[in-house]
């Protein structure tokens, strides 16, 4: 017999060991014989009552399965919660575009003059004006220099720069000379004084006091009467006024003709003259020794060999050669330029076609110039054809590089890329470009894939595997439940224990605190905290911790009230008097003698609490105020497909998750109910 006390079970065990449990044959077993009595420990009694409750057993099994699913399942499932899945899919992509260049780009002539920035910026509109006016040569004045712009060929223009030298000015106009006052008999000049003018004015006024005109040294003057007996004197001029040496009559005729055309300049006698208009006066400038500065062109080079480099010198010399055609030198080689349909063709020294220069640019959208010449040519021709027919869409078929199902190019034994006839569609956009569309196999995120063998519940909008996310989500949800319930029970037991044991002002204080926490609106405060964490852009793991702490702090009051109520009744019982009499420490009295006695109620409360915490957490996450993407919880998974259209099409995502939440919470509630009945069979039923 142990010294722990008398135990009927041990007595029976001892008897059995001694072989005394069997009654001799023939003897009747007495009704109160010890061998007929089977005594269960309190724990086993509870267990026996618990497993008799079918709902509770169902709940327990569900919970065990749920834990295995959430905590063990991911170990065997190949995918992670943040693993994004991709797939290869044939898609109609924007393959490239064809565009007729409208802008002219400038290329510096090697060792040539520079073009002022302001002029350079205006060059596109200058060239367009030349085009619309149908002129081949134009002149522009900059701040420092004058420029001669000359058309070399269609779409190619050469700008030369030269210093300006004013030759003459020309025109008819008026200039204010001054005011003649009758009082002072004096002429006040606003410009340089003119010799003899004062006398001439005086003579003119004497002949006609109202006003009029007179001439002096070939200049016509006008005087008009103003206020306070004074006359305003203006001079008129007309014709050519040379700044330096006068030019011959031919020059004046050319100048006259150009001014009549409202032109910008002209060439005379091998020299270029630019014109500038200032009010009613024209100024003619001589361009002193023009030097080539820049070539402007809207041609694009397409090499026959895809990706071959065109050096700047080759480009520039080819452009300069468009004026004459024929051969030219660049990079130490000789090239031949000839006119081709819609552009120019450049051949190398051996006579092989090297590149074509056309106003059409054809390029891939991905930036890499991987298009071969034939395709560029075909697309350009199609675009020209469409432009001529004013068609918005057009199609053509061309052999594009063949792709495997994984998007790679197929290469045959000889190392050549295999091709496949592909239909290309050209669409003219609002801006006049032709966008080329065709089917290509590309690598995309596998979004909203329907359930299949690879992904049991399909994938969600981020390409995550739904089944994996449900597993990991279960982890977070269950973990949140455990931590929060542990926290609130811990706080509740301490506060309730202190309150119930000490009574008096401690009790008073803690119970008022409990009242306050009871009154705090639970859900609004969680929503506010969630919005606050949103505003602070908190990391999702920190959010998780903050949320658990907040839920725990908000929930301790009910546990404290329960513990206090139990302790108040237990405190009066004999065993507590005994603990006091034997002088056990207060801490041990509370935590070793009182708390174990309220364990049953605590366990029931904790189990039920777990369900409600999971509900709260999933609601918050559903509203987007709890745990955030990319961390999975059951609430966030449903939230990701809660929009009207997603809800309709992706029911395979949210229905299983919703059912899982329900099952878990139901299981916790059933187990809690079962435990309560098992601990205290007399209580309710």
């Amino acid at each position, binding site marked *: 017999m142990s010294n722990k006390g008398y135990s009927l079970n041990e007595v029976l065990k001892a008897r059995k060991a001694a072989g005394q449990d069997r009654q001799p044959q023939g003897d009747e077993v007495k009704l109160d014989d010890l061998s007929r009595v089977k005594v269960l420990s309190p724990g086993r009694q509870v267990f026996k009552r618990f497993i008799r409750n079918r709902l509770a057993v169902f709940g327990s099994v569900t919970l065990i399965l749920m834990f295995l699913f959430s905590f063990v399942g991911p170990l065997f499932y190949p995918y992670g919660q943040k693993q994004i899945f991709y797939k290869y899919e044939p898609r109609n992509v924007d393959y490239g575009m064809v565009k007729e260049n409208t802008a002219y780009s400038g290329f510096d002539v090697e060792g040539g003059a520079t073009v002022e920035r302001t002029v350079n910026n205006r060059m596109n509109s200058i060239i367009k004006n030349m085009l619309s006016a149908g002129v081949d040569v134009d002149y522009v004045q900059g701040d420092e220099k004058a420029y001669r712009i000359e058309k070399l060929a269609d779409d190619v223009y050469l700008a030369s720069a030269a210093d300006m030298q004013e030759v003459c000015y020309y025109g008819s106009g008026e200039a204010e000379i001054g005011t003649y006052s009758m009082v002072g008999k004096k002429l006040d000049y606003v410009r340089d004084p003119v010799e003899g003018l004062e006398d001439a004015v005086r003579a003119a006024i004497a002949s006609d006091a109202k006003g009029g005109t007179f001439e002096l040294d070939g200049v016509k003057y006008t005087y008009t009467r103003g206020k306070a007996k004074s006359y305003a004197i203006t001079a008129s001029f007309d014709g050519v006024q040379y700044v330096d040496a006068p030019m011959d009559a031919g020059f004046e005729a050319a100048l006259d003709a150009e001014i009549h055309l409202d032109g910008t300049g002209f060439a005379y006698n091998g020299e270029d003259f630019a014109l500038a208009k200032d009010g009613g006066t024209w100024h003619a400038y001589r361009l002193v020794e023009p030097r080539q500065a820049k070539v402007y062109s809207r041609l694009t080079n397409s090499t026959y060999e895809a990706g071959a480099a065109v050096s700047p010198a080759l480009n520039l010399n080819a452009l300069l050669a468009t004026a004459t055609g024929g051969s030219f030198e660049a990079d130490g080689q000789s090239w031949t330029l000839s006119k081709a349909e819609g552009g120019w063709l450049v051949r190398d020294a051996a006579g092989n076609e090297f590149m074509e220069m056309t106003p059409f640019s054809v390029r891939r959208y991905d930036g890499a110039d991987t298009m071969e010449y034939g395709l560029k040519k075909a697309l350009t021709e199609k675009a020209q054809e469409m432009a001529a027919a004013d068609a918005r869409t057009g199609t053509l078929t061309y052999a594009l590089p063949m792709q495997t199902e994984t998007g790679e190019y197929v290469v045959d034994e000889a190392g050549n890329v295999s091709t496949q006839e592909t239909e290309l569609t050209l669409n003219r956009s609002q801006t006049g470009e032709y966008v080329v569309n065709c089917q290509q196999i590309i690598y995309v995120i596998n979004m909203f894939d329907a359930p299949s063998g690879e992904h049991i519940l399909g994938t969600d909008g981020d390409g995550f595997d739904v089944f994996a996310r449900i597993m990991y989500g279960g982890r977070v949800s269950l973990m949140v439940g455990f931590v929060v319930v542990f926290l609130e029970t811990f706080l509740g037991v301490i506060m309730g224990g202190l309150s119930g044991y000490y009574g008096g002002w401690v009790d008073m204080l803690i119970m008022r605190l409990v009242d*306050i926490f*009871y009154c705090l609106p639970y859900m609004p*405060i969680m929503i*506010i905290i969630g919005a606050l964490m949103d*505003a602070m852009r908190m990391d999702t793991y920190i959010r998780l911790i903050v949320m658990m702490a907040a839920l725990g702090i908000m929930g301790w009051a009910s546990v404290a009230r329960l513990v206090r109520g139990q302790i108040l009744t237990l405190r009066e019982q004999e065993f507590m008097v005994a603990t006091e009499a034997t002088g056990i420490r207060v801490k041990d009295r509370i935590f070793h003698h009182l708390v174990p006695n309220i364990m049953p109620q605590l366990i029931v409360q904790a189990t039920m609490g777990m369900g409600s915490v999971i509900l709260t957490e*999933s609601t918050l996450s559903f509203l987007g105020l709890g745990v955030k993407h990319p961390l999975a919880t059951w609430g966030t998974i449903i939230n990701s497909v809660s929009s*009207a259209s997603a809800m309709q099409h992706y029911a395979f995502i*949210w229905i299983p998750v919703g059912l899982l939440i*329900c099952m878990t919470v139901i299981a916790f509630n059933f187990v809690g109910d079962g435990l309560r009945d098992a601990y205290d069979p007399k209580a309710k039923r």
Partner: protein
Amino acid sequence: MLKYTAKRLAYSVLILFFVMFIIYVLMYNMPSGFVETKARELASRPGATKSYAEWLADLNAQYGMDKGVVRGYLIWLGNAVRGNWGDSWVWNVPVTVEFHNTVWYSFALGLVAFILEILIAIPLGITAARKQYSFTDYFTTVVAMVCISMPTFFVATVLKYIFSVKLGWFDLSGMQGRNYMALSDFGKFLDVAKHFVLPLITLVIISIGGLMRYTRTNMLEVLSADYIRTARAKGVPERTVINRHAFRNTFIPLVTMLGGTLPGLFSGALITETLFSIRGIGFASYTSMTQADIPFIMFYLAFISILTLLGNLISDLLYAAADPRVRLS
């Protein structure tokens, strides 16, 4: 009784004082610069009547943000007691106006749900208790448990999926149909009523389980009481035993509990209203909470706290009124 009520009221006011203090501290600790951001946003909103500096000064002065927590709280409290709750930042009207605009929808929704809940849950609970361990009992228990365990958003989503998406009977959300303005007054009423159906079902489903279980448990307790056994022993017909002896005694905890939930009819259904976009006080406050509309949140939380305290008080008073054995002191 009068003295008890007065004492409880005074005590409730004290609790309210501290509850609001905790909430105020939470609001006060919004990330730094939050009020500035809010002021800038309010000032740049189309139709804004005040400039940034004016808003900032206004907000700080109104909520005592520039002073300490305690002083700020007292300033807010002083304003609140005088009925000066300020202007809502989100709704651009005085808080009390927005409250008036929304609370009646919530009340209508809550009241109908409450009546339906009583009509369904109490008879079911009593039937389950009468036939304990029968199929009806198990069925009711399981249904009640399922209802308790379903998250509101899942119920709402399932209902929307079935009735709006699949059957197309109701709109997904909102409270007015597309041609609302063209309808007669009665037609408008019917239109709004139709939009309230799904939220109503949601509310009834999520709240019915608790009441059902409560009724059943209490009925079982009463049925196992000595006076029931005595009545049966005397040969009282079973109907009379249930309807008069048992139900009347079950009535006491029921009335107490239901009385306590009455003020809650005004508090609005935060989640349900939000999910169905019903312009009730719950939805309004949810919007305010996510956009940090401090005046409206403070008002709403004070309102809910008062309702909770009032519910507790009503519950206790009803307990004494319904059960002559209970004496209040």
